C-alpha cells in the first residue's frame, strides 16, 4: 500500500493511504449476505438516494404541469398519482431511511462500537425497506395510488379508490414501518449498551443524541400508523367499518391516528438533521458546540412536545375550541427549543475561525432556509391564520422549507462531510460548492414564491388552475426554480460518481474533526477499531490529537506528521 501525501496538513494516528482494495468476500453475494453495519449503511444510503431521484422526477413532472395555467401535460389521474407517489417516496423511502442509513454507518463508529447490537436484525431492516419500496413502485405498472400521502378515507376506501395501488401503499407503510421499528430498536440498544469506555450520556456526540431520540420517536409513533393502515386494509377487503361513516365508523378517527403518527414523523425526519449540523458546525468553526447540554435537552424536549401537537393538522375539522387553543399553545411551545438550537448554532460560529468547506455551506444554508420554514410554521400554528393558509401552496412552501431546506440540506451536508470516511476519497470542493449554490438558489426560487401562490388562493394538489392575478407568472418562477434545484442535485451525483474513483485520498481524519469515526482508517476495516480509546470528553479526537502532539512534539497546526509506531497502537 503506497503512502501518499495528505490533502491538508494533519496530525493523525494512521498513515495516509490510498483506500485498500476490499479484502475478504467480494461480489454481489457478499452484499446480499452482509451483516456489517457499514455495508448495510451504504446499501441504505444508495437505495434511498435512488428513491430520492425517483421522487424528484415526480416533483419535476408536477412542476412542469403547473408551469402554465390550464396545462394538459398530464391527466388529473396521473397528477394525483404523481403527488401521492412523490410525498410517500420522499417521506417513507427517502428522508426517514436515509437517516437510518447514516445512523447505521456512523453511530457504531461514533460511539466506538464494532457493529450494531443486532447485526442480522439490521440486515432484515434493510431488506424490508427495499421490499416495501419495490412493492410500492411496482404499482406504476398497474394503478398507482392516488389518494395523497395522507390517504384520508373515505377517498382511500374501496368504494372511491378500488385499485390495488392503494393496497400497495398500505403494504409499503407496513414494510417500511416494521423496517423502521426494528432499526430503531437496534439503534437504541446499540447506543444504550455499546458505547466506548468513558462515553457517558454527557459525552455522547449530538448526532447520536439525535438518533437516540429519533429511535424513541419511531418506536412510539410507527405502531400507530401500522394500526391505522391495518384498519384501512380490513375496511377495504374484510368488511370492517372503522372509517366508514355510513355504518358507524368515523373518517375523523383516521385523521387522529394518522397525525398522531404524522406529527412525530416530522421530527423523525428533522432531528437527525439537527444532529448532523451540531456535529459539522463545531468542526469548521474550530470551536466547541455552544451549549451542548441545551442542544441535547432541546432534542428531547422537541420529541416529547411533538406528541402533543398532532391536532394542528386538523384545525379545520369539527373539534372543540379548547383543543384548538391547547394545540396552538403546544405548537408554540415546540418553537422554543427549536429556536434555542438555531441560536446555539449561530453562537457556535461566533468568534470561531469559520472554514467555508462544502459541508459548512450546506449547514449554513440549512439554518438560513430552516428559519424561514420555522417562521411560517408559527403562522400555521395560529389557528385562525391556519384556516386561511392550510391546504394551500403556503403550506406546501412551509413543509418544503423544513423538509428540503431542512432535512435534505443536512443530508447533503452529511454526504460531503462523511464521504471521505466511507470511501477514503474527498469529494470535489468546486463541484460541491456549485451544487450547494444551485440547490440553495433553487430552493428559494421554487418555494419562496409558493407562499404568495397560496395566499392568492391556490389550493395544493390541484392539477390545473385559472390564471387569476399573477398565478401563471408565480408558478412559472417556481417551476424554473425546481429545475435549478434538480441541477444542483445532479452536480452532486456527478461529483460522487467521479470522486469515488479519482477523488483526492482523504486519510483517516481530513477535517480534523472531533468524534471517534475519524480515529479509524477511511474506509474503516470490518470491525472498525483494533483498540477503542478511553473517552474523556465530548470531543475525543481533540484529546487524542493533543496527546499525539504531546508525545511526538509536533506543533498544534504543524505540518503533516505521522505518529511513530507504538505511540497509539491502532495499526490497520
Amino acid at each position, binding site marked *: 500500500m503506497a503512502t501518499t501525501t495528505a490533502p491538508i496538513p494533519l496530525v493523525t494516528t494512521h498513515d495516509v493511504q490510498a483506500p485498500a482494495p476490499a479484502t475478504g468476500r467480494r461480489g454481489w453475494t457478499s452484499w446480499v449476505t452482509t451483516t456489517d453495519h457499514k455495508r448495510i449503511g451504504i446499501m441504505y444510503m444508495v437505495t434511498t438516494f435512488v428513491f430520492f431521484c425517483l421522487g424528484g422526477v415526480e416533483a419535476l413532472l408536477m412542476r412542469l404541469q403547473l408551469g402554465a395555467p390550464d396545462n394538459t401535460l398530464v391527466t388529473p389521474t396521473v397528477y394525483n398519482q404523481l403527488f401521492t407517489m412523490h410525498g410517500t417516496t420522499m417521506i417513507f423511502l427517502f428522508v426517514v431511511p436515509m437517516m437510518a442509513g447514516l445512523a447505521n454507518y456512523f453511530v457504531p463508529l461514533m460511539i466506538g462500537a464494532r457493529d450494531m447490537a443486532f447485526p442480522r436484525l439490521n440486515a432484515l431492516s434493510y431488506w424490508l425497506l427495499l421490499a416495501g419500496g419495490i412493492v410500492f413502485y411496482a404499482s406504476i405498472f398497474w394503478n398507482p395510488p392516488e389518494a395523497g400521502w395522507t390517504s*384520508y378515507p373515505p377517498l382511500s376506501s374501496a368504494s372511491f379508490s378500488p385499485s390495488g395501488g392503494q393496497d400497495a401503499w398500505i403494504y409499503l407503510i407496513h414494510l417500511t414501518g416494521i423496517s423502521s421499528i426494528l432499526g430503531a430498536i437496534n439503534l437504541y440498544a446499540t447506543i444504550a449498551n455499546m458505547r466506548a469506555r468513558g462515553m457517558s450520556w454527557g459525552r455522547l456526540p449530538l448526532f447520536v443524541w439525535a438518533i437516540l431520540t429519533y429511535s424513541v420517536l419511531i418506536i412510539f409513533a410507527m405502531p400507530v400508523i401500522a394500526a391505522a393502515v391495518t384498519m384501512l386494509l380490513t375496511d377495504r377487503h374484510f368488511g370492517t367499518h372503522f372509517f366508514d361513516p355510513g355504518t358507524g365508523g368515523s373518517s375523523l378517527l383516521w385523521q387522529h391516528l394518522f397525525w398522531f403518527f404524522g406529527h412525530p414523523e416530522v421530527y423523525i425526519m428533522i432531528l437527525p438533521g439537527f444532529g448532523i449540523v451540531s456535529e459539522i458546525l463545531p468542526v469548521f468553526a474550530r470551536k466547541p458546540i455552544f451549549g451542548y447540554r441545551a442542544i441535547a435537552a432541546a432534542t428531547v424536549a422537541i420529541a416529547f412536545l411533538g406528541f402533543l401537537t398532532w391536532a394542528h393538522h386538523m384545525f379545520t375539522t*369539527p373539534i372543540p375550541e379548547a383543543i384548538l387553543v391547547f394545540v396552538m399553545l403546544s405548537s408554540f411551545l415546540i418553537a422554543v427549543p427549536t429556536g434555542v438550537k438555531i441560536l446555539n448554532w449561530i453562537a457556535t460560529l461566533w468568534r470561531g475561525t469559520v472554514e467555508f468547506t462544502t459541508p459548512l455551506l450546506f449547514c449554513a444554508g440549512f439554518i438560513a432556509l430552516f428559519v424561514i420554514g420555522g417562521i411560517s410554521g408559527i403562522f400555521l400554528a395560529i389557528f385562525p391564520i391556519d384556516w*386561511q393558509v392550510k391546504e394551500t401552496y403556503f403550506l406546501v412552501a412551509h413543509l418544503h422549507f423544513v423538509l428540503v431546506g431542512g432535512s435534505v440540506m443536512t443530508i447533503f451536508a452529511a454526504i460531503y462531510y462523511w464521504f471521505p470516511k466511507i470511501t477514503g476519497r474527498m469529494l470535489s470542493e468546486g463541484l460541491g460548492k456549485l451544487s450547494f449554490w444551485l440547490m440553495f438558489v433553487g430552493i428559494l426560487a421554487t418555494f419562496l414564491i409558493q407562499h404568495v401562490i397560496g395566499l392568492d388562493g391556490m389550493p395544493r394538489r390541484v392539477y390545473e388552475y385559472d390564471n387569476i392575478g399573477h398565478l401563471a407568472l408565480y408558478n412559472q418562477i417556481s417551476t424554473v426554480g425546481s429545475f435549478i434545484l434538480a441541477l444542483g442535485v445532479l452536480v452532486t451525483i456527478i461529483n460522487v460518481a467521479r470522486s469515488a474513483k479519482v477523488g483526492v485520498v482523504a486519510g483517516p481524519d481530513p477535517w480534523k474533526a472531533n468524534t471517534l469515526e475519524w480515529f479509524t482508517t477511511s474506509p474503516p476495516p470490518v470491525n472498525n477499531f483494533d483498540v477503542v480509546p478511553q473517552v474523556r470528553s465530548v470531543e475525543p479526537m481533540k484529546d487524542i490529537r493533543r496527546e499525539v502532539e504531546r508525545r511526538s512534539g509536533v506543533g498544534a497546526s504543524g505540518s503533516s506528521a505521522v505518529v511513530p509506531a507504538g505511540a497509539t497502537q491502532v495499526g490497520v
Partner: protein
Amino acid sequence: MNRISAALGHLASTLAFFTPQSGGSPNANQIDSLFKITLVIALVIFALVEGGLVYALIKFRKRRRKGTVAAQIRGNTRLEVSWTVAAALILVGLAVVTFAKLSSIQNPSNSGPGGDTLASSDGGLLYASSERKLPPDGKSLNIKVIGRQFIWQYVYPGATEPDGLGAPYSYEEMVVPTNTTVTLDVVAADVVHEWWVPQLGGKVQAIPGYHNYTWFKALKPGVYRGQCSFICGRGHARMIATVKAVPPAQFDAWLAEQKKLISEANQQAKIARAKLGTQTGAGQVENP
C-alpha cells in the same frame, strides 16, 4: 406629509402581496389583520436571526482571522436562559393577540342595517346544534353546504315539506344578500371536502358523518371566488365554489324565483311520473 402617507400606502400594498385575501367579510378582515401583526413580528425575527447568521459567517471567516485562534467557548448559561425566555415571551405576545382577535373571527356579528329582514334564527335551521354559533340577536340566514364529488350544493331556508324537503337550492354558485349574516352548515355526501372562499374567511372541512360550521357577512355586492381545498379525487381542481352577493331585495326575488322554478320542475316530474305509471309495464320503471 403626503409623501409619508404615500409611502405608507405603498408599504401596505407591498404587505398585501404577502397576506391572505380579505375584504369580503369581517372575519376574513380580522384574520388578515392578525396575519399582518404576525408578519411584522416574523419579519423582525427573520431579519435578526438571518442577520446574525450572515454576520457570524462573514465576520468570523477564517481568511479574515489569520493567526487568530477560535475562542473556545462552551456555552453561556445566562445568555441561553435569556434567549429561551425571550422566545417564549414573543410567543406569549402572539397568543395574546390571537385571543384578542378570536371572538371577532369565530363569532358571527349581527346583520348590518341594510341586511335582509328575512334572516331569522329559525329560518331554515336544518339541524339544531349547540356548536353552531349565531349572532347576538339570534338572526342569520342559514345555508346548508353539501360537498360531493365534484360539486358544491347549497340548500337555502324555505322548506315546504317536513325534513327540509322542498327547500330552494343551487349548485356551485351561492347567492346571498349583502350585509346579512350568513351561517353555514357544512357537510359532505361522499368523501372529505373543504369549503373555502378566501375573501369570506377561513376554510372548514366537510367530513362525512359530521357537521361543521362557519359564517360570513358579505359587505359589498360582488362575486367571491373559491374552491374545494382538500383533495377529493380526480375532479378536485374543478370543484369551484363562488358566492354571489346581491342587495337583499334582489336576493329575495332570486330565492322566490328559484323556489318557483324548482317547484315547477318538481310538478312536471310528478306529472311525468304519473303518466309513466299509467303506461303498460310501468312497474318496471322505478326512476324515470
